[in-house]
């Protein structure tokens, strides 16, 4: 009797395990794939941290990270629908919208994190006659730098020149004096200080155009009823911002430095020193950009002849998803 009892119990146990596995498999198969594009820059850390910490707990999404080396390559990926979501500069988002690419700006999760580094001097006035490397002429950094230098009575062309410089070769070009200064997102500023005798230049914040990169989602992804996936992902991003701020404040960003190793590959010392000193005034906090901010950028782009089309900014900007996620996060 006892053997029979044991056999029946074992069979029941096996049936239960198979049921669980099939339920899990069904659940897994129902998860929506969210393709996230990123560039290995410290302001993009929330994308990496959220994926590292929450990917096993997602109920509705399955995330996949795609690494790109420049804002242009990530722009190309969004344009041809190779990624669903990414954090990109505002001018690129506006440019894509002007070209009719179906995207929505749903918010932003970081401020600052860009450092102006020159050789041997920290005085902004010594930049007269110099060539300054920026991530792209359609980057936030370029627009902000022009605003700042204009406020300091610098005239483009007469007093300074900007040039788009690839991240990979930025340091080598800075060392070779092809550019006299760099205005790039972290950790490139810190690398220039540590490896090429760079000195951080104090840059007064411009009055306008202060917002960092923005999160852009392809509209067709939202249209197919996947907003629940975005909602879950945004909550994860909000948590990751909190995690990053806590880690910087209380643990000198040591955990973040370990997490970024697989996706970014920077040395832990470089990341901790940049984050704990909050170089470039870096802050990770979700915020909602306004139409006025984009209007200001759009005005600058038209002035620079980078765009000619008019954009319906009210349609382009949709922060309702982020607001909902934040409300939900606050309630928890």
């Amino acid at each position, binding site marked *: 009797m006892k053997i029979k009892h044991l056999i029946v119990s074992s069979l029941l146990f096996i049936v239960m395990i198979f049921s669980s596995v099939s339920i899990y498999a069904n659940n897994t198969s129902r998860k929506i794939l969210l393709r996230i594009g990123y560039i290995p820059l410290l302001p993009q850390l929330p994308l990496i941290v959220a994926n590292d910490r929450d990917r096993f707990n997602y109920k509705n999404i399955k995330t996949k990270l795609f690494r790109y080396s420049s804002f242009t390559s990530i722009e*190309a990926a969004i344009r*041809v629908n190779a990624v669903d979501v990414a954090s990109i500069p505002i001018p690129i988002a506006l440019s894509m919208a002007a070209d009719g690419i179906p995207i929505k700006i749903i918010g932003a999760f970081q401020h600052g994190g860009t450092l102006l580094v020159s050789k041997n001097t920290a005085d902004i006035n010594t930049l007269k006659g110099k060539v300054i490397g920026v991530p792209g002429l359609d980057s936030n950094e370029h627009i902000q730098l022009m605003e700042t230098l204009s406020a300091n009575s610098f005239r483009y062309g007469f007093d300074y020149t900007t040039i788009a410089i*690839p991240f990979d070769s930025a340091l080598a070009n800075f060392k070779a004096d092809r550019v006299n200064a760099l205005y790039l997102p972290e950790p490139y500023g810190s690398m220039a200080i540590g490896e090429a005798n760079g000195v951080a230049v104090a840059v007064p914040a411009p009055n306008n155009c202060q917002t960092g990169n923005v999160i852009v989602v392809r509209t067709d992804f939202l249209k197919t009823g996947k907003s629940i996936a975005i909602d879950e992902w945004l909550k994860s991003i909000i948590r990751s911002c909190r995690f990053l701020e806590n880690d910087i404040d209380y643990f000198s960003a040591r955990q973040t430095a370990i997490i970024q190793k697989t996706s970014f590959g920077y040395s832990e010392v470089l990341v901790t020193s940049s984050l704990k000193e909050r170089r470039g005034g870096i802050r990770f906090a979700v915020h909602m950009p306004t139409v006025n901010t984009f209007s200001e950028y759009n005005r600058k782009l038209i002035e*620079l002849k980078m765009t000619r089309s008019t954009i319906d900014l009210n349609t382009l900007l949709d922060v309702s998803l982020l607001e909902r996620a934040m409300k939900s996060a606050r309630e928890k």
Partner: protein
Amino acid sequence: MKLSALKIGQKALIMIIFLMVVVGSSITVGIIMLSKTSKNTVLASISKKFVDIQNISVAEFNSAEKVARDGVAEASGIGSLDKISAIALISQKDFSQVVQNEIGEVSNNINNMLGKQNKSTNQQLEEALKLAANSISEIMAFDNHSLNILANEAIFDLDSQNTASIESLNRFATNLAMMKEKLWAMENENNTDIDSLLITLIVNFDDPAYSQEQVLDFLITGFDALKDKIARRKEIFFEDVLDDFMLQEKVVGEEFRLVRRKAHYAINRELTSSRNIQLEKSTAIIKELLRQQSAISTNINDSADYVRKVIKRLNSTIQKKLQARGKNTGEQISRQVETTKEIARNANNKVAERIRLNTEKARFHFDTVIKDSQTVIKANLNQATRQTIFFSISIILICTGIAMALGMALLRAITDPITKVLGFAEEMSKGNLTGRLPEGKDEMGQMGGALNTMADEIFKLREAQLNSFNQTLDQLLDCVFMFDPDNLQYTYVNRRAREHTGFSSEEMMSMTTVQIKPEYTHQSFKKMISPLIDGSIKHLTYLSEHRNKNGEQMPVEILVQYVVPPDQKGKFVEIVRDISERKKAEQEKEKLQARLLFAQKMESVGQLAAGLAHEINTPAQYLGSNIDFLDEAYQDIAEFMLSIQSIVQDKPLNQSAKIVAALELADWDYLAEEIPSAIDQSRDGVKRVAAIVLAMKKFSHPASTEMAPVDINSVIATTLTVAQSEWKDISEINTDYSDNLPLVPCLEHEMGQVLLNIIMNATHAIREVLTIQPSDQKGTIHISTALKKDRIEIRIGDSGPGIPEEICARIFDPFFTTKDVGSGIGQGLTICHDVITEKHGGTLDFKTEIGKGTVFIITLPLKSTNNQLS
């Protein structure tokens, strides 16, 4: 006899007599002197007047002679003719000078103007040339700069395209890897389907229910379905592959298109910017050159105009000036002729008149001198009278002054002592008792003596009060410092303050308060206490450090207050309390709290372990009983099988074949050999689980607060079982227990904790060695117990790396650890030391050798004391 010895009445009498003598003497001397002076003055005046009369007579005769001679000369007109010829000569020279001056001036002006013009034009031309040269250099430099930027942009674009290419290749490589995985998965699925079809085929083939045709049909249908399935899979796979590749191709194409577009924009922007700047610079240069040209042209025109104007003005000026001069000269000559005629007419009249006038004048002078002489004699006599009166009054005034001065001196001799007495009394009323009055035999001297005595008495009284106050302050346990608000120099310190700082009172009085406060400078301290002076805060309490004479620093709590005594300057009073003991107590408290926290944590871990042990124990028990049951059942089955085998041997071969086949199918021989050993192994396993659970239960049993006799060997064995998972893979345990070890009074739970900590540390040390130098051989932990007179000794040695000398002194310190963050909290050995020495009255020591290992030696007394029990 001294003046101070005289009475006031005597002093006044002397003064009056002295005054009378002085006045009388002075009047007599004055009268004698004045008589002599008057007589001499009158004689001198009369003599002088006679000499004057003589001089006037001679001068008047000379004057009459000169007048006569001048009259003759004027009447002849020689002087006028000389003057006319002189005027003509002067006019001639003047004409020539005017012409020379005018022409010279004009010539100089034109020269100057032309010189300036030349200089200015040259300068402007040079500036224009320089500007043009500079601007051309600048434009060329800018061109080079612009070319450099364009070249760099080209390089950076190539870099970008290079990176994009490498990145896309990487993505292609990733895609290929994924495809490879998908291919493997597809192949597996295909193989599974083929296997499934073959199995079904074999089963059906053996089944007599299916005919050969039916099997063949099934085979053909199955293969067709399989082919379709595989084709579909291939199709899906290739679609996926194609989609992936196409997407990647799209990304690359789009990226190159964007890079090109952005590069075009950047180059156009640079070219436009460069063109605009060059245009702006060229325009500026041309504008400047035109301005220079215009300025030069204007300058030349201005110069020509000026020359024309100057020549024109010269023509008119010379003509006008010559005409004016000619006219003026003619008029002068006519006037001079008329004047000469008039002079000649007047000369006769004038000579006669002058002689008459001189005679009259001489007579008049004689009369005047005589009258003057009379007046002088009269005046001298009057003056002598006046001088006599003046001298008399002066002497009287001088004598009166001297008398008044003496009187004043005498009065001061009388009033000064009174003033001194009044001042002394006033100082005394303010509390100043340092001054003393002169003493003597007169009234004031006697009063001075009395007041001095009174001041002495009051001073003694105040000293006594002050001493009493100081003694009171000296008995305070707190330090009292007083210091000056301006230079921060100490003015008072009590006995406790002197003991606290180690300086003597004299040394302290020459020091400032910041000299014992190393945290502050003079300025920073003054800034801190300034709100007390302006009254914005009443007092200030702060924590700081004081440095004593030996240079030691002590934490202190300071209350500082600004006090202003009545009629005195304000001062700062500091009440300082040494808080070294309090600080130590706080640190002790923190340590205790940390330990308490740790103990609570360990307690909760223990409770958890106890719960787990309970949970595991129940299934372990029924596993054990089931294994026993299976063992018994197997014994029965084995006997049963033996019986069957013996029956088979007795049966005919055809009857026993099926049974033999069944036994072979069941592989009974193999089972008969393996089942007993499997049951034994299972039983051993369960026993080990039960032993570990028992040890854990024992180990995590709530700690007793009272000592009880304990078998130390048993405690060590239990601890080793608990820690088995830690040491079994990396270390061998060698035990050498003493057989004659008595029971030791101790807290069993805490002793187990100590042994566990030390064993765990030993395993960690061995793991460290094996990590650095991997080896097939395990490390060794040697544990021994021994009886030593009235104590027992436990030795736990390991073959770890040993403890470096520099940290030997610190290993029992709280929170000291050499382990990585999160691996250890640095409390283990601290607690062990505390448990062994404080709670059991034993000792915990160690011996270590680098590269060989460490031995911890615990000794425990066989008799516990009351203290330890409590």
